[in-house]
């Protein structure tokens, strides 16, 4: 759960998805309301299954999910009319020019013929493929195909864009272009984005909220935006000679301090306390500060921690883990 004031985009309610005899998603609970949400997890964690369930390709065995308040079990068509989906694998229609393909997708979403044509042209120019839009999709490079998939996901003006591994197989310049586009779409504020990826950097660059899955459970959920904001007050000290009295003195200053008995001390500073006061306390306690780092947990740290141990989903909706030291 991110900003409590925001309306939830996706709500998961005891969501269980079973394929054959295997339970893929195990009673997921949570509420996501970020502008751009990252879905992370190792292979087989259930990311694609979750996306496919939201799209209505898998029927939940029990529980449900809601998108913009519409239940995916009972309002599948309404839900899908709000979504734009960019699949992970190559997906296109053979022997069709790019523009015709995107126009077809727009018409299937309900746009009248003329509007669909106009929007297809716009979408192609928007993703930077305006010059090649009349070429057969079969002749496109991998990067062009990815962009075409993004164009078809955008063409009907969805409220939520589901991007499954959007940078898959792209070379560095193409990857940068794709990420820039996603950031631009996010910053325009007209559409929410859910990105499923195993590339932490992509998610870190594009998302303000992250849901981490492991073995079909929610391993962690955090608001990256709040994490970034709190970085300014976060300190990690590498010390020599730190002890209980040093930590106690820091707490007296108003800092939240965590010390595991080794040389590292993690602190969250109140606004009125600066680094100078920390050095002063260290000096008074005879502690050497050898390194001082302002950076809080990166997404990689959060991800690795989540992978070490699955946090079982509480009976209530899952709380985010941000704010931990």
């Amino acid at each position, binding site marked *: 759960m991110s900003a409590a004031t925001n309306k939830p985009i996706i709500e998961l309610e005891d969501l269980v998805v079973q394929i*054959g005899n295997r339970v893929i998603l195990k009673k997921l609970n949570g509420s996501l309301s970020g502008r751009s949400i990252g879905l992370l997890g190792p292979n087989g964690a259930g990311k694609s299954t979750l996306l496919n369930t939201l799209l209505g390709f898998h029927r939940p065995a029990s529980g449900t999910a809601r998108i913009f308040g519409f239940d995916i079990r009972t309002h599948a068509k309404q839900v899908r009319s709000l979504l734009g989906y960019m699949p992970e694998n190559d997906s296109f*229609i053979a022997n069709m020019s790019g523009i015709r393909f995107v126009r077809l997708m727009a018409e299937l979403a309900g746009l009248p013929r003329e509007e669909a044509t106009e929007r297809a042209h716009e979408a192609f120019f*928007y993703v930077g493929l305006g010059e090649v839009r009349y070429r057969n999709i079969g002749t496109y490079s991998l990067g062009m195909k990815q962009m075409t998939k993004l164009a078809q996901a955008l063409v009907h003006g969805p409220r939520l864009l589901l991007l499954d591994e959007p940078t898959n197989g792209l070379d560095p310049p193409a990857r940068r272009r794709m990420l820039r586009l996603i950031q631009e779409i996010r910053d325009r504020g007209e559409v929410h984005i859910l990105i499923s990826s195993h590339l932490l950097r992509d998610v870190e660059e594009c998302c303000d909220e992250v849901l981490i899955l492991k073995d079909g459970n929610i391993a962690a959920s955090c608001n990256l935006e709040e994490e970034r904001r709190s970085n300014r007050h976060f300190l990690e000290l590498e010390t020599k000679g730190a002890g209980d009295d040093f930590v106690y003195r820091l707490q007296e200053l108003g800092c939240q301090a965590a010390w595991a008995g080794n040389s590292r001390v993690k602190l969250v500073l109140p606004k009125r306390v600066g680094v100078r006061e920390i050095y002063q306390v260290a000096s008074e306690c005879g502690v050497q500060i050898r390194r001082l780092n302002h950076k809080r947990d990166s997404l990689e740290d959060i991800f690795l921690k989540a992978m070490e141990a699955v946090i079982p989903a509480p009976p209530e909706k899952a709380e985010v883990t941000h704010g931990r030291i």
Partner: protein
Amino acid sequence: MAVYKRTYHRYEGRLTPEWSRFLVLTRYSWEEMNRIRFLNMFLLGTMIWPLVCAVTIYLRYNLSALELIGINASDLIAIDSKFFLTYLGVQCMFAFFLNSFIGPGLVSPDLANNALPLYLSRPFSRTEYVLGRMSIILILLSLMTWIPGLLLFLLQGYLEGWAWFTGNLRLAFALLAGSLIWIALLGLMSLAVSAWVKWKPIAGGLLFGIFFVAAGFGEAINAVLRTKWGHLINVSHLVGTVWLSLFEEPMRRGSGAVFFRVFPGEEIPVWMCWLALFGMCLFCLWLLGKKIRGVEIVR
């Protein structure tokens, strides 16, 4: 503003009615097929037989024309249920060939290119997808079968008079129902084959196999077991029997038309033929349901 200068914005305009969206697929398929010259030529070629039938009907009622070409009116075939049954048999045979050409290419490219998640991630259901794909078969085969058939019926009714028209309305119904049974069966079979066999030539071959090899196999069963129930897997025999009952055509030596002939002593109950055809359609739908999915489930 020039189209290339525009940026992303949400669509707020009007939407088409949900019920009509499956026709988008039909229109695109139609446009694709219009580009194939052979298909257009074939479709035109299938109009020759209805034209011959129309000329035959016309000549029967135009004595001066008959005198001119030196034909006696009694030499021309009678315009009765046998006439329309023969017409239907020929046209449905052409329909089968056309369907074998277009049917296998309707679903298999979408499966081969993993396009189904794109269709089904929109407010567009699996049923609408199948309906959209099948409509093109329905339209093309209708243009070849019952539409010209009913026009022939109207022409005959116009020339013969109101009494004939009202007295033979069952023929119009038989033309319509007989064609639709055949079209539905062909459409569902070709879509099911297309969904399971991704290679178009193999899918086309398999369709021929279902009709001809199964018929041969049915005959073999009949010969070996000295029975007639082998015809239950002979689609043309089943359809031929149903047509005979629809046209109320008496059983003669080799009744019916072209490869829909039914021979005396080999008839199976009509209700069983209906049941078998219905079962085949259901089986095809089940096969389609297994394949037409947003994601392929590997258990």
